[in-house]
């Protein structure tokens, strides 16, 4: 695996903004004193006149984005997930969600893989929070290729979009030559018949690895990548429930309110089968290197494979 290219999706975000700026003259970028970390600095360098640093004031930044959108701009409001979805939640709800304005929220440093900064900055709740806002689209890309495509898709979509990016460099698993992004459509990464692993973000790669491990043990696992958590591809999820009879979800997010919850909701309505969730349990993170934290909190191929075997026992 020495030739695997790794890249953080925050980097893809900054580059995509820069690369799309010419094609989309309405695109402007806002940040809250984190341009170097969110990578909007890449855009700022190329288009300084279309970049606005709002300072450490995320609430105002979201409101400014709303006002810009009300006047025809396509603002990308960027900060860490903790502050975008957490601190500014109510502004996102009332100033962006309720008027359904064309604001794109670029939330970086999502999840436990923030690493050393610890629990205050490890946002494992953002998907849950954003899911509750009517009309909010949520995209959680799994790698560089998907992240770039997500930014383009968000630009082409009229309405509020929450995009979730990571700090940690993760393997590039999609082929840019053949990859096609379809908003709201899950991607079957690998077919299988015994169970389905539904994963999002950096857990997609772990799910693919887990499926390989399971295959060696004679278990046929299907892997579905859900990059758009809302609106969820319910049709595909229910189809997987019907065809494989059990589902394991995998996300770098709390098991409360995220992908696992969304999948469970869809399955209970469409085809009730056991759903076993891999994610951050009801607890805060702590400081440490990202790769170690991911292992410790069970966000790994090993744990997905282990949970898959437990899940199979629940299968009727």
């Amino acid at each position: 695996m020495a030739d695997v290219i790794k890249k953080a999706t925050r980097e893809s975000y900054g580059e995509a903004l820069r690369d799309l700026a010419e094609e989309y003259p309405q695109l402007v970028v806002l940040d809250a004193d984190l341009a170097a970390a969110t990578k909007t600095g890449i855009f700022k360098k190329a288009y300084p006149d279309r970049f606005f640093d709002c300072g450490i004031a995320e609430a105002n930044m979201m409101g400014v984005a709303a006002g810009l959108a009300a006047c025809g701009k396509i603002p990308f409001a960027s900060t860490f997930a903790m502050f975008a979805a957490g601190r500014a939640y109510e502004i996102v709800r009332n100033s962006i969600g309720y008027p359904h304005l064309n604001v794109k929220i670029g939330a970086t440093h999502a999840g436990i893989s923030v690493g050393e900064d610890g629990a205050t900055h490890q946002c494992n709740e953002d998907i849950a929070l954003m899911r509750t806002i009517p009309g909010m689209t949520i995209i959680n890309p799994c790698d560089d290729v998907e992240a770039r495509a997500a930014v383009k898709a968000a630009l082409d979509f009229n309405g509020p979009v929450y995009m979730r990016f990571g700090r940690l460099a993760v393997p590039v698993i999609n082929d840019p030559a053949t990859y096609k992004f379809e908003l709201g459509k899950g991607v079957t990464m690998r077919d299988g018949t015994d169970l389905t692993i539904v994963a999002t973000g950096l857990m997609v790669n772990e799910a693919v690895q887990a499926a390989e491990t399971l295959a060696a043990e004679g278990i046929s696992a299907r892997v579905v990548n859900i990059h758009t958590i809302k609106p969820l591809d319910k049709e595909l999820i229910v189809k997987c429930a019907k065809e494989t009879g059990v589902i394991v979800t995998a996300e770098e997010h709390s098991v409360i309110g995220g992908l696992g919850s969304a999948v469970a909701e869809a399955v209970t309505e469409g085809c009730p089968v056991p759903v076993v969730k891999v994610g951050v349990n009801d607890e805060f993170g702590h400081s440490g290197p990202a790769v170690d934290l991911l292992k410790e909190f069970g966000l790994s191929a090993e744990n997905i494979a282990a949970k898959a075997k437990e899940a199979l026992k629940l299968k009727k």
Partner: protein
Amino acid sequence: MEQNTKKRLQRTACKVRMGVIEGTYNAKSGHPGGSLSIADTLTYLYFNKMNVDPKSPDSADRDRLVLSKGHTAPALYAVLAQKGYFPEEELKSLRHIGAMLQGHPCIHIPGVDMSSGSLGQGISAACGMALAGKLDGKSYKVYAVLGDGEIEEGQVWEAAMFASHKDLTNLVAIVDNNGLQIDGPISEVCSPEPITDKFAAFGWHVITMDAHDFDDIDRAFTEADSVKDKPVVIIQKSVKGKGVSFMENQVGWHGTAPNKEQYDQAMAELTAQLKGLED
């Protein structure tokens, strides 16, 4: 200000006040006090100042107004109805199920430039609109109307910092200084005073005005137009409940609707005022 213009504005403001009473009475809820304190200023803006046209409410070049103190929507709706954005009859269904006029301003209502009501947020949206105007080289102005209690919200000061740093000289904020918020006088709850000094310290040009004197309102907004290097804030000294005797300066009328008897009395008073303004 020319006498005829003043009379016309006074008459319109009186009809706006009647609309406020009509709306809140029929809704059996809502916020008459702060609606009445802002009625003259909104009337002046929509009938004597802003470049707006009810026939093209989405015109890209229009002036914009964000009612950051969104709970006083009855005043905005009454002004918009007077201006012809929608029939006055709509005011009677304010806050009713299925009605167009929501309890707080909603961007989908003709003439409403931004959804608002969660305090402290409207001024940020106004900053975004002003920034967009600058980017597009447009000459429109953006007005943001805030309550004096509202400026206790921290987001207001984030926006105040942003506006002066980004040179939003096309932004005019109006602080409705009626001195009362839900829990009591602002001086007793958690005082935002000194309001003028605070905005000055944040880099704004500060103007004070009497909110119920059209000559003074005209002077203040004319001065605002002359300022080219800073965002402008107008601190308007106002009377909560202005125009209805028993509501004036009464904190209890912040968020209470008049009953039938009170409605009749308020309408009688306003009708008499309107009659007094006839030529």
